[in-house]
Structure formats: structure tokens, C-alpha cells
């Protein structure tokens, strides 16, 4: 009794001996279509790249405007920034020894 591998090989051998199918002629306008599709796809990729860059630049500009506006508002509200006082307090706490 032959193994499945052997029977598989018999079948593959028979398949290889089958006559090759003849490819049909190149469809009309095939090359032109392929080339234009390729060109359009490359242009789309470039456009996508620019669109992505523009979106990022816009997001960055919007964040910068919001930050600048909030800083301006903070300064105009008259509250002194408490950072130096807080820092002094923190240093005193660290250096404090009983």
C-alpha cells in the first residue's frame, strides 16, 4: 500500500504533465491603464503625505494659540505666579531637621 505522500506525488506529476494553458492576448489599453493607475496612486500617496503634514501643522498651531491665550489671560488676571514661593517652601521642608 503506497503512502499518501507517494499518491500526492503521483497526482502532482500528472498535473505537471498537463498541457499549459495559452495566455489570452493583452487586453486593449491594458498597459496604459496600469501606468495611469500607478501614476494616480503615486500622486495620491504624495497628496496624502502633504495632507497629513498639514493636519499636524494645524494641530500644532491651534495648541500654540490656546497656550498663548491662556498665558495672556493668566498674566492679565493679576495673579502672581506662585512658583518661587512654592519652591522656597519645598526647599525649607527638605532641609528642615529636628
Amino acid at each position, binding site marked *: 500500500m503506497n503512502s499518501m505522500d507517494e499518491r500526492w506525488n503521483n497526482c502532482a506529476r*500528472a498535473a505537471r504533465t498537463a498541457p499549459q494553458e495559452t495566455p489570452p492576448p493583452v487586453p486593449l489599453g491594458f498597459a496604459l491603464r496600469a501606468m495611469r493607475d500607478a501614476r494616480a496612486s503615486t500622486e495620491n500617496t504624495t497628496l496624502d503625505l502633504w495632507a497629513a503634514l498639514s493636519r499636524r501643522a494645524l494641530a500644532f498651531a491651534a495648541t500654540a494659540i490656546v497656550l498663548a491665550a491662556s498665558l495672556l489671560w493668566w498674566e492679565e488676571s493679576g495673579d502672581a505666579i506662585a512658583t518661587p514661593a512654592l519652591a522656597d517652601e519645598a526647599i525649607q521642608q527638605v532641609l528642615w531637621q529636628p
Partner: protein
Amino acid sequence: MREVDSVECTPAEETNLAPWVERARCGDEAAASVLVDALYPMVWRIARARRPVRVSEEDLAQDVFKKVFERLDQYSARGGIPFAHWVARIATRTCLDALRAERRRPELRWADMAEGEADWLQHICSATAEPAQSSGSGKAAREMLHKLLSMLPPKDRMVLQMLDLEERSVKDIASMLGWSASLVKVRAFRARLRLKQIVNKLKLERPDELDG
């Protein structure tokens, strides 16, 4: 005998293609037509042998040539790879992508088999005698093997197709698919195991006929 790339260009033809590649790179549509005319039969055969069941050869060939023209700038004859081989590599990978994109792999049922195909499947499933060689026998064997292979995962199918049906070397397959030689061997081993499982399942569907 290789089923697929018997039409790959000879070195002389390859040299003849070089100027057309350069011109197509500059956007010359006439040069693109010459390249397509020279390579379409090879691409069609690759697509025919390795395509998913529901995709036509022409659609795949269109996709292949689109990618070829998109990446023409990346091709360099100095790299030592013939242009036809470079195109064959793109065609193989496009077929693999198309196989991966298939949402469901087709089911294989005995009832879907034509008469000659069922004889070959029966031969693989049980120890029945090899079907007599006739004019249509080879074609039936090929059709049946394609149906059987289409049940495997894409990479497994591709490896067995290239190893057993096209008799390509492991090195050649590794170069075509961008894998290492050991990966090709491991995948072929696993693919054969999966194939045996599928065949055993098919045997269970028809135990009476196959015992005799």
C-alpha cells in the same frame, strides 16, 4: 517541467528590455506597452496558478503591472536581478496578498468535483489505483490539486504550489517570497501535515466508497 515561468525572458531578451525599462521610468507609455507585451504571458500564468478562486487572472495581472510601474524607480539592473525575475517576484507577492485578503477559504466537497477530479481525489484519499493517463487526466489532476490547495492557509498553499506543482527549488522559493530557506522547509512540512488532516477529513465524508 515548470508550469509557470517557462516564458521568462532569455538573457538576450532581458538585455533588450533594459532600454524600455529606462524609458518607462521616464513615463513613456509606448515603452510601458512593450514591457507589458513581453511580460504579460508570464504574469498571467503566475496569476492563473496562484490566484484565489474568486479573483480573475486579468484583475491580478492589472494589479501586478500597476505595482511594477509604481516601483520602477526601485528596480536596478545592477543589483543582478533580471527584470523578469523582479516582476515575477512582485506577481507572486501580489497573489499572496490576494490570497490573504480572501475572507473565507472555499470549502471542498466531493459533490463539487468533476468526474476525473474525483478519481484523483479518491486516489489521494485511499490506496486506489492511479487513474489511467488520458488526455484530460493531467488537467483533472491539476484542477483537483488547486481545489485541495485552496483549502490551506495562503502561505502554506503558496509553498506547496511552488514546490510540488512548479518544482521550484527551496532557494528559488525563498528568493521569490523573501523568506529564509529554513522557513520555506518548515512551512512546507507544516503544510503537508495540514493537507493530511484535510484529506483525512474528506475520507470521513465518504468512508464506504474509500474502504473498497
